[in-house]
């Protein structure tokens, strides 16, 4: 089957790739672009481990085709830290032990960063519902929610 040529932007860098028309964005990121931060927990849109942003909108990259990235902007966990430093969410996740195994962490970080950009002052319930599509089997979510709430408070204080 002939491959499709795609030009897109990933974490601010322009990239080009060839992909099979059936290939998901998640497979493209992981297998063609070497960005294995996004994880496949289910491949069916149920776990959120593959979360990325598409033009600023949170999507499951396992439900998106690689070909759909043409001309768009993709954001992954690899783009969250700046060149010099970790994002405040990343620091708080480490400090709060908001990860045990860490497989859900990339998706949860992408999702919560996206939340805080839209809503810098979420309630606990808002965080819980925003993250309802990101499964974590290890933590019981307690420390994740606390880390997000504390980051939000800190970022509000700083801005």
């Amino acid at each position, binding site marked *: 089957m002939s491959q499709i040529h795609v030009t897109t932007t990933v974490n601010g860098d322009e990239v080009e790739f060839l992909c*099979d028309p059936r290939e998901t964005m998640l497979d493209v990121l*992981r297998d063609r672009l070497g960005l294995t931060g996004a994880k496949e927990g289910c*491949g069916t849109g149920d776990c959120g481990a593959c979360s990325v942003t598409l033009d600023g909108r949170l999507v499951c990259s396992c439900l998106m085709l690689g070909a759909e990235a043409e001309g768009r902007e993709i954001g992954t966990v*690899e783009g969250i830290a700046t060149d010099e430093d*970790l994002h405040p969410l990343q620091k708080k996740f480490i400090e709060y032990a908001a990860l045990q195994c*860490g497989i859900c962490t990339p998706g949860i970080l992408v999702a919560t960063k996206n939340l805080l950009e839209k809503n810098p002052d979420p309630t606990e319930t808002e965080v819980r519902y925003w993250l309802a599509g990101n499964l974590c089997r290890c933590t019981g979510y307690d420390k994740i929610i606390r880390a997000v709430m504390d980051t939000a408070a800190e970022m509000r204080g700083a801005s």
Partner: protein
Amino acid sequence: MAFDETKTEGFKVVGTRPNRPDGIDKVTGRARFGADATAPGMLHGVIVRSPHAHARILKIDTSEAEAMKGVHAVVTRADFATGLTGENWNILENVMAGETALYDGHAVVAIAATSSLAARDAAKAIVVDYEVLPHVTDVDKAMAEGAPVIREGAADKSVPAGLHPNVVRYHESGHGDVETGFAEADLVIEDSFRTEATHQGYIEPHACLAQLGNDGRGEIWCCTQGHWNVQKVCAALLGIETSKLRVTASEIGGGFGGKTAVFIEPVALALSLKANRPVKIVMTRSECFRATGPTSSTSMDVKIGMKKDGTITAAKGVFRLQGGAFPGAPMEFTAMCAFAPYNLANVSQIGFDVMSNRPKQAAYRAPGSPMAAFAVESVIDELCEQLGLDRIETRLKNASKEGTKASFGPTWDRIGLVECLEAAKAHPHYTAPLKPGQGRGISCGFWFNHGGETAVQMALSEDGTVQLSVGTPDIGGSRASMAQMAAEELGIPYENVRTTIADTATLGYNEISHGSRVTYASGLATIEAARDTIRKLCKRAAAKWGIDEEAVSWVDGCAVPSGPNAGDFDPLPIARIAKSMGRTGGPIVGHYEATPEGAGVSFATHIVDAEVDPETGSTRVVRYTVVQDAGKAIHPTYVEGQYQGGAAQGIGWALNEEYIYGADGRLQNAGFLDYRIPVASDLPMIDTVIVEVPNPGHPYGVRGVGETSICPPLAAIANAVSAAAGVRLHELPMSPPRILAALEKQAAG
């Protein structure tokens, strides 16, 4: 201090909460998990699985698939070792079916191609002819007369005569005379309970990358709880020498017991051998549900007699567990854990291991124990209810303590159940007012914990920092706790220890990370390796000073002269000794190898408030408190995390999660949409209380903490539901339809 004492105070690093060393890797996407590895020339493997619960494999036609573009290898059972016996045979039979497919999802043939799309396309072109056989998936039906036999002759000698051939192992334990005990009781309650199978639900599916050459040398990269076990099992299944395989454990995205088993690694090796190229296999989520180990489902009868003052006079339990199409359901653990929290004069427990047409069960966090607690603690709750007794006082009255005889035989060493119950009683949660429609439940839980074969190595760098190599994969922060124990013992900063998970070629055998053994056993070995290092450091100092080795002690990261030489020389810091070690005798490396047997058991008490919606039957957990004995919490934040994670998994098991089989024996909910694990919006914060009753078997008093936390929730929630809605559920999960049915039955009188 002496090297054989339990240290209980004066800690500098242990008990603090430093950032984990692998934190940055895991928040930036840099950490490499099972599916994140690639190799030059790598192929992708796909496994074709049986769509039938029980079927004879008549013919496998791969000709069309093999002719497809990009396809390089196909393997069936014929490509694995023959003549295996015992558990190796069971594992091989599970990894790749022989003559018969034994459950929906059983592997039948595998194919490798240049891309995963090509492999999937080719897999669809493989034609397997089956003769469908009668099947059974229910535990009670599987042991009833007339049930289809899964495999003749699978039973071992423990099974009494006259039972169905699907009953493959039998357990009996206890002491005293239960009939006399029941006669002494003022109230005897006997009830039957059932729990459905649940899956560990780790978010990372099984994944591996394997290479095997025809010289028999191979490499495996995989997500596993035990890479030495992968090495041993793969060598046996491929018929090669163990040392020719080197296995590296990737970062692991959750396991909870489910990654103690081997599924895809031998298949990837066999494909690689045929194709002479590396092969990667990554399971899909539905493969994880259909073909990797769920828990056993159970059917249980529990009978308990109690006096009016709350004294339990006798207890009896019968526990039937189906473990899928192979022996191994952990029914002896269910039986042994059932009454472990209580000091009983008369107790009897019986277990049955039953085969059925389901996937081979695998360990899941305290395997077998949560179900037992569900049945036993429900009956105790009912007895307290009917006799008007306080739930915690009654449990305290009967609690196991140091010196009492355990229900399964041994005499308890120092244990912390009373301390947990007292802490629960004192917790504000226990007496907080409830809103209408809410109910409160409590439950105790027990797990043995484990030691196991362990080898650790500690190499000193020339600047005085330390490289610690352990053999137990870091599943939730153990690099941090190992570094803390090493730093504590050596008297150096936490940051000066780097912990690495070594591969199988680097250390001696390390048993799987199971049984909550890592902080206990690898921790103990780390402390002992540090002590070995210190002895070597002291020796160098003694030689430099020209004094006796015995006259040197180790204080705060320095060698100091002691005894008659005290004060004669300035303390010699670790960095100074390290700097000159090349000239004073060569590299300094401490190590320790043992099978520690002093893993202290652990108890917990959970308090939960639940709210039942009488309209929909849905239950919401509104408040949750975990109280558990950790012995000594090395990194309290990660201990809390274990408590919270176990509670959350228990909540899922109690309320939602279950394997649903159709009449055709096929699994109907093999995905996270239909097998619903708790999501963030389902749960409240989970409060934790760390009780510390030191384990005499560990230098710092550590007890394993990972598993006990899943034992009490099923019962605690059932008891809360009973208090909230006035109906007692005897079957898990307590899903809305079941609760509604119970409410309707109650309304009908």
